[in-house]
């Protein structure tokens, strides 16, 4: 699982530019599957199980990651940009980003020595930031970056004990789980969807859920974990090393209580660590899927992830394995009618 995640996190794919991630997924799952790419770029993989499913189950994860998009090149050759997906200003300032053609740029900062008083801790708005690719002037910059080009954080995969640090764990973790399930085979016929454009309004999943028309959906995600220094327990949302995470409610979905309870029952039966997401925060593709067509019974399972939407998100390899195990068992329960 860890190697799969490493391979997938290394690929750059901001929302709307997921082609390389999709190609990587396709090469990882190999030939012999019923594969379809929809008009929004989402990849739909129908996998034959040992048995037909009583209920149609869709597992999904999103391929896109947060990034930035070039909007304008200044006369001095600096690149104005806006964010693709939600990124806090402090996560951008002083960081490096990589464009699709490999050009690296840095988000510039006014030197702190030249700031007085409160300005020393003041964060500029994104509209006042710029990316510096080392260009001499506008013409020089335009040889390498044009408005509309996108970039993502640079980041080197780092292992810290059981923990993993990388960009894009949200949601290559979900992609890695699905790739592993496809490779190892499934008990019941199952549809896997690798969605596009989650970070910009749950768009890929809206289209693909219509196309797949499932009865049950399991959304696999990376969700924010705030188990960090200085945060009271009640505000931590979930914690690394305590297993997969299941949502009862977030800002996109009020989840089906039967499915929520079933997740804990299945986790218990199989000795899989599972924790509730203890704050109503964030949202994910479940928001568009559960109201698709006439409605889809939907659940979200996550790997807890610190510093989400930054160059250095951190998750725990054991939680990733728990997510993998629970996704399989829960999919089987739904497909077999045991839910």
């Amino acid at each position, binding site marked *: 699982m860890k190697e799969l995640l490493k391979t997938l996190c290394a690929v750059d794919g901001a929302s709307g530019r997921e082609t390389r991630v999709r190609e990587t997924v396709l090469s990882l799952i190999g030939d012999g599957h019923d594969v379809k790419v929809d008009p929004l770029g989402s990849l739909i993989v129908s996998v034959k199980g040992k048995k037909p499913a009583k209920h149609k189950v869709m597992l999904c994860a999103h391929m896109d990651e947060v990034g930035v998009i070039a909007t304008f090149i200044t006369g001095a050759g600096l690149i104005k940009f806006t964010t693709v997906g939600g990124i806090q200003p402090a996560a951008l*300032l002083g960081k490096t980003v990589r464009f699709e053609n490999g050009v690296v740029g840095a988000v510039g900062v006014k030197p702190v020595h030249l700031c007085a008083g409160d300005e020393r801790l003041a964060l500029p708005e994104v509209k006042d930031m710029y990316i510096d690719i080392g260009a001499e002037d506008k013409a020089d910059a335009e040889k390498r970056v044009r408005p509309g080009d996108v970039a993502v954080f640079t980041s080197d995969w780092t292992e810290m004990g059981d923990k993993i640090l990388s960009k894009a764990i949200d949601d290559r973790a979900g992609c890695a789980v699905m790739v592993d399930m496809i490779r190892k085979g499934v008990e019941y016929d199952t549809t896997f969807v690798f969605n596009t454009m989650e970070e910009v309004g749950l768009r890929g999943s809206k289209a693909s859920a219509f196309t797949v028309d499932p009865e049950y959906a399991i959304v696999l995600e990376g969700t924010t974990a705030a188990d960090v220094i200085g945060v009271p327990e009640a505000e931590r949302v979930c914690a690394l090393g305590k297993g997969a995470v299941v949502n009862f409610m977030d800002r996109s979905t009020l989840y089906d209580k039967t499915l929520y309870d079933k997740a804990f029952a299945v986790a218990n039966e199989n000795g899989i660590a599972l924790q509730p997401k203890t704050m109503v925060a964030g949202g994910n593709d479940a928001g568009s899927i559960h109201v698709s067509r006439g409605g889809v019974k939907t659940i979200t399972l996550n790997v807890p992830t610190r510093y989400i939407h930054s160059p250095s998100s951190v998750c725990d390899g054991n939680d990733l394995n728990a997510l993998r195990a629970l996704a399989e068992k829960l999919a089987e329960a739904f497909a077999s009618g045991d839910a």
Partner: protein
Amino acid sequence: MTNMQELLRRITAAPSVSGTENAAAEVIKDVLKDTADRFETDALGNLKAVINENAEPGVMLLAHMDKIGYIVTGIDKETGFLRIDKCGGSDARVAPALRVNVYGKKTLPGVIISTPPHLAGPDAAKKAQPLDKLGVDCGLPYDEIKDLVFPGDRAMVDAGFYELNENRVCSPFLDDVAGVAAAIRCAELVKAAGGGRRLECVFTTREEVGGQGSTTASFATKAGTAIAIDVSFAKAPGLPETVDSALGSGAMIGYAPVLHKSLSDRLRELAEEKNIPYTVEVMGRSTGTDADEALTAAGGKVTGLLSIPIRNMHTPVEIADVRDVEAVGALLAAYVLDE
């Protein structure tokens, strides 16, 4: 001649947060092993490389090999996260989600925490947290990390070294790795040309925390002339219009009440004679560099300052133009060879 980009890359990688500069000293010694007649070190860790040992008069170059970073102030028992404060003038605005290495009993990778979005209050996007409110996550529980890291250990950013194009590099610590590289280039040029003054290249410690290295090195030298080599602000958006030295515009020749005008003038004449590009940087008082300590040391020195313009000073994305580093190296060599 050592390739400039490779030289910068190599010195940048050596851990040398203020007060712990040994690893950088070893790298510099290795680079200059065939160039220097001999090396000396002192009680504060300064490294002196001597060339033209028996010549008179002598000139001392001062380039600081310490880097800004962080110092561990404690370990949180509940989370195992390290509490830190700045060691040198690290910019708190860029700290969230930065990859760092902690130099404890062994080198541990870690990340400076960033406040999770759901806990970020309305002001979080506008105001950064001071460093003592953040912490470093090494992914290890208290019971493990307490035996590996102790208060007083240093941590340093690990943000990569990028060649943005053929001339511009982006990396943490170009302050003062660029100055160190210019001093090395000067030594190589002098050695290759033969002759000239006695050259003492002093790679100083602790510049970022007050210039104590320069204080003792300047006391100990017999050279009557001292030239500090540091970085200064390059022209960039949002800076005062008086900050006018562009990247690629050559050496910055310092003029200040604490610098000898005769020496600044001589450096300017040499730049004109040798066609070395330069700009003039005028400061109204002291310089904030190793030159300030050199001026009054051991009865006083004739003191000068050459700077390399960089952008984004004291952030992980300092940007320099290698042509400026070469210009400073060439101008220094011209001075040393000008008997």
